[in-house]
């Protein structure tokens, strides 16, 4: 079972068209909802006249911001959204009104009858404009002007570290934003059920957080709300926030007493966004002649878009995991997220880490060249070691980085290729580290992060109830496989119910690569408990000590005398007779991470870290700047591959997405000419214009798993669905340099940028394309935390006394 290639449990439904996604749901008397979205990037709403829309034949209801005034947001510190804008719109696509009608087309027609009187406000396009224009302030709760959030840390005396360096490298990088582009457009159906309670079927990765937000906004006890996360047609982080439309259809269904559906258009999905934050980064790194890093200083200017979303977390992640790949003895990080009048950025595969990883890995390539050390050799010298405690007090566990590098060098033929291929062809190497589930949950409490319930009965069916969300990654299958392995049965004998807040125990959601490890450990615990009951009952029956019993091949038998056996079904019956109805539970709470005691030290902690190394080989056409990826090799330290087919799919899917980010994907905006309002609009809100890798572009990939079971992982497993994306972009940049000798310090690396860099090279200037300046700003006094090797105990030496959390909005818990 574990470790073998196997058909996943949800495969049949997906290849026969039987899987029911949110938009496939159709219920009697169902009405349709459409949202009126702002055409302006920034404006005050003076008034809204809905009377003509309401009078339109077939229209049931029109809602505006006044009907749903309570704010929500995924993070407790950023409760800055309302389902419909109340008095201000902050980006093109911000919804201001909703029409609910008998037909979808009627609702769309009626939108045009709504009159909104807008007072246009100046718009802010990017962080530098935000810095220059503290007014108009996009949100009043921002830290200062349009600076949403600043974080600043210093681990050790960084200036001293630079003084000890033989060379100091300074580089500026820009990573453009990009979006998830799930194939399934977001859709939801809300129902007022026969008891008068609310059920919401929706395409989400985080039903539990949505559940909380619905309770708050609708002022209903959560116990009277059921959220069903339907099988999700792709998430990648883009369906992890609660979304406007989910509240609107819920409210409408409650008011109308009939089901209400909404299905977003592709253009609307681009407005929902929550994708990769654009980051402008300045790296200063000091090194010894042998490549040892003495200090690193990273400054990160982050474009957040119009709302908070996960942005505070993203601001930490924009620097926190820089210390987990290579040994960095002294580290200063300063990050600032800005509000701008664009759709909000949030978590996309790798959440906040791919951008600084790009800068770090490209800079290491530059360092290696200057020091005349092979880049693979340099990385081996400075790689983190197993169980290392990093400068910022992240506790690593198993570390397969060295093996990853050695193996990727071997299988790619690196030594015969690097700096040896003909002009126009090149190879590049990059590495990364990622976490397996965030150590801290969004809402701090003592309760488990994952729970599982099992029901076993005389039918022989094992029913698994989970709060997890199947977003295509295979979570239903992985959980079923773990339970099957413990109980010695087939996954086909298990039925999985997941993503339903009524049926399953709480799980925090499918994000931060947490499900396999957290829900998996909970599933193993539940299965072990059921097994123990069965073993006790069977041991009595067979008169065998229970320690000698084996569960395998759908039977329970004496390991010493295998003919002494009962079938699995008989074993359940014996247990049911002995103990009564059989149901067990399991739960998982991450271990405490005592090391990082400073404020903000919880971000980046994880039960286990994974490591990846990638070599990519490219052809660059010097006339057109076109990059063709010839082949890619990846090694990934995932602890253990539970189902190699699924693990390979996660790795290849990550690489695919990374190649798109490297070469073409960008969520970009432009200003309309001033005669056309000067508004800031999305450049590519369609699948045709938002370029992605197609079947024609996808190169051959060689993937090798580096397996070394991690004691904290279920059956030793760590994540594999995000980590392998991270090295792809820098590996491509390093390969382009090897091929044609130009540095592209900016993502995506489009042909135009390469041609420009080649022209610079030809003109005898620096052979580079990338940002040429970095804004001056005040970052605030950093929190000074001495690293472990300077005798630090994980506390800051200048931490202001912590207040008893007055700033955090007090959570209202409604009881039925």
């Amino acid at each position, binding site marked *: 079972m574990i470790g073998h290639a196997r058909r996943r449990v949800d495969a*049949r439904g997906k*290849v026969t068209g039987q899987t029911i996604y949110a938009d496939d749901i159709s219920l009697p008397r169902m009405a349709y909802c459409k949202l009126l979205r702002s055409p302006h990037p920034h404006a005050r709403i003076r008034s809204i006249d809905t009377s003509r829309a309401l009078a*339109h034949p*077939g229209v049931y209801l029109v809602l505006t911001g006044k009907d749903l005034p309570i704010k929500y947001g995924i993070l407790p510190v950023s409760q800055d959204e309302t389902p419909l804008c109340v008095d201000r719109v902050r980006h093109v696509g911000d919804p201001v009104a909703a029409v609910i009608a008998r037909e979808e087309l009627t609702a769309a027609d009626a939108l045009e009858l709504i009159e909104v009187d807008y007072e246009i406000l100046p718009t802010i396009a990017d962080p530098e404009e935000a810095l220059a224009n503290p007014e108009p302030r996009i949100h009043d709760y921002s830290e200062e002007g349009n600076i949403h959030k600043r974080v600043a840390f210093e681990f050790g005396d960084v200036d001293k570290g630079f003084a000890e360096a033989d060379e100091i490298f300074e580089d500026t990088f820009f990573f453009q934003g990009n979006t998830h582009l799930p194939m399934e457009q977001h859709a939801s159906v809300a129902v007022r059920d026969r008891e008068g309670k609310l059920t919401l079927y929706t395409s989400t990765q985080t039903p539990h957080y949505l559940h909380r937000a619905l309770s708050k906004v609708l002022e209903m006890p959560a116990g009277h709300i059921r959220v069903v996360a339907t099988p999700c*047609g792709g998430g990648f982080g883009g369906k992890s926030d609660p979304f406007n439309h989910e509240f609107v259809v819920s409210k409408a269904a409650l008011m109308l007493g009939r089901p209400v559906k909404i299905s977003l258009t*592709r253009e609307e999905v681009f407005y929902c966004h929550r994708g990769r934050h654009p980051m402008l980064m300045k790296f200063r790194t000091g090194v010894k002649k042998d490549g040892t890093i003495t200090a690193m200083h990273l400054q990160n200017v982050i474009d957040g878009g119009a709302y908070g979303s996960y942005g505070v977390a993203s601001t930490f992640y924009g620097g926190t995991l820089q210390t987990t790949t290579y040994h960095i003895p002294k580290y200063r990080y300063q990050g600032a997220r800005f509000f701008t009048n664009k759709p909000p950025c949030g978590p996309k595969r790798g959440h906040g880490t791919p951008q600084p990883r790009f800068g770090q890995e490209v800079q290491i390539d530059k360092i290696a060249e200057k020091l005349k050390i092979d880049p693979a050799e340099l990385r081996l010298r400075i790689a983190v070691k197993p169980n290392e405690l990093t400068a910022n007090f992240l506790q690593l566990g198993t570390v397969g980085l060295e093996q990853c590098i050695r193996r990727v060098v071997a299988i790619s033929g690196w030594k015969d290729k690097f700096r040896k291929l003909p002009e126009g062809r090149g190879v590049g190497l990059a590495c990364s580290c990622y976490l397996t589930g965030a150590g801290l949950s969004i809402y701090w409490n003592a309760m488990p992060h994952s729970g599982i319930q099992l029901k076993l009965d005389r039918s022989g069916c094992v029913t698994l109830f989970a709060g997890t969300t199947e977003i295509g990654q295979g979570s239903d299958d992985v959980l079923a496989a773990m339970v099957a392995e413990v109980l010695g049965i087939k996954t086909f004998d298990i039925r999985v119910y997941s993503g339903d807040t009524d049926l399953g125990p709480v799980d925090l959601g499918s994000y931060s690569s947490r499900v396999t490890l957290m829900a998996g450990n909970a599933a193993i615990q539940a299965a072990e408990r059921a097994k123990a009951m069965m073993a006790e009952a069977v041991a009595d029956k067979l008169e065998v000590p229970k320690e000698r019993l084996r569960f395998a091949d759908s039977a329970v038998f004496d390991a010493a005398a295998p003919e002494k056996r009962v079938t699995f079904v008989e074993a359940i019956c014996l247990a049911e007779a002995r103990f009564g109805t059989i149901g067990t539970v399991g739960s998982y709470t991450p271990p405490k991470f005592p090391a990082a005691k400073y404020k903000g030290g919880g971000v980046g902690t994880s039960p286990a870290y994974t490591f990846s190394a990638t070599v990519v080989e490219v052809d660059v056409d010097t006339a057109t700047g076109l990059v063709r990826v010839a082949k890619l090799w990846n090694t990934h330290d995932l602890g253990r591959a539970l189902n190699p087919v699924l693990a390979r799919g996660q790795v290849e899917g990550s690489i695919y*997405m990374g190649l798109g980010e490297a070469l073409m994907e960008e969520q970009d905006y432009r200003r309309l000419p001033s005669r056309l309002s000067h508004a800031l609009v999305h450049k590519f809100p369609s699948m045709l214009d938002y370029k992605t890798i197609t079947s024609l572009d*996808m190169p051959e*990939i060689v993937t090798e798993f580096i397996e070394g079971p991690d004691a904290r992982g279920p059956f030793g497993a760590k994540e594999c669905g995000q980590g392998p994306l991270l090295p792809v972009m820098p590996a491509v940049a390093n390969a382009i340099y090897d091929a044609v000798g130009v540095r592209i310090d900016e993502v995506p690396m489009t042909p135009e940028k390469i041609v420009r860099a080649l022209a610079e090279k030809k003109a005898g200037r620096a052979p580079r394309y990338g940002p040429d300046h970095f804004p001056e700003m005040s970052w605030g006094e950093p929190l000074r935390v001495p690293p472990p090797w300077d005798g630090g105990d994980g506390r800051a030496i200048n931490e202001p006394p912590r207040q008893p959390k007055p700033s955090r909005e007090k959570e209202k818990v409604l009881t039925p």
Partner: protein
Amino acid sequence: MAAKREAPVESQKTARIKMVLNGEAQDVVFAPYKTLLEVLREDLGHTGTKHGCELGECGACAVIMDGKPVLSCLVLAVDCDGREILTVEGMETDGRLHPLQEAFADLGGMQCGYCTPGILLTAKSLLDHNPHPSRAEIREALSGNLCRCTGYLQIFDAVEAAMVEIAKRGETTK
């Protein structure tokens, strides 16, 4: 703020065609503005066919019409009179999955599964016309079908495995 209810014009099902859907003759009545995609999903309850854009950009809505793959979001249902349509629901025969369906299920050809129906039918159409395509021909045939999950390689593997299986099944029936 509920308004009085009059019949919206959109719901008036004034168009009528005959078509063969997955081998069964159908008399279909629907609102005339609808695309084949909408009629399949909304009027005929065949929700296996998906949509990612409804603008002809993603391939999720591909079905086979008279033996050729078409994007059902770009076909007006009124133009389907007398046509034969095959959707994912019609790929199984005699309770047996099509070799493509088996191979996609076994070899990681789908993850979230949302692009899968469109890809299965596009691939079926390829194999119907070209039983032994090269990998380059498979890439070419699927170049209009976007998938955000898999990275395509396991899809290619699955199509190739199905190709072998179909050839085998053909030999045993000969």
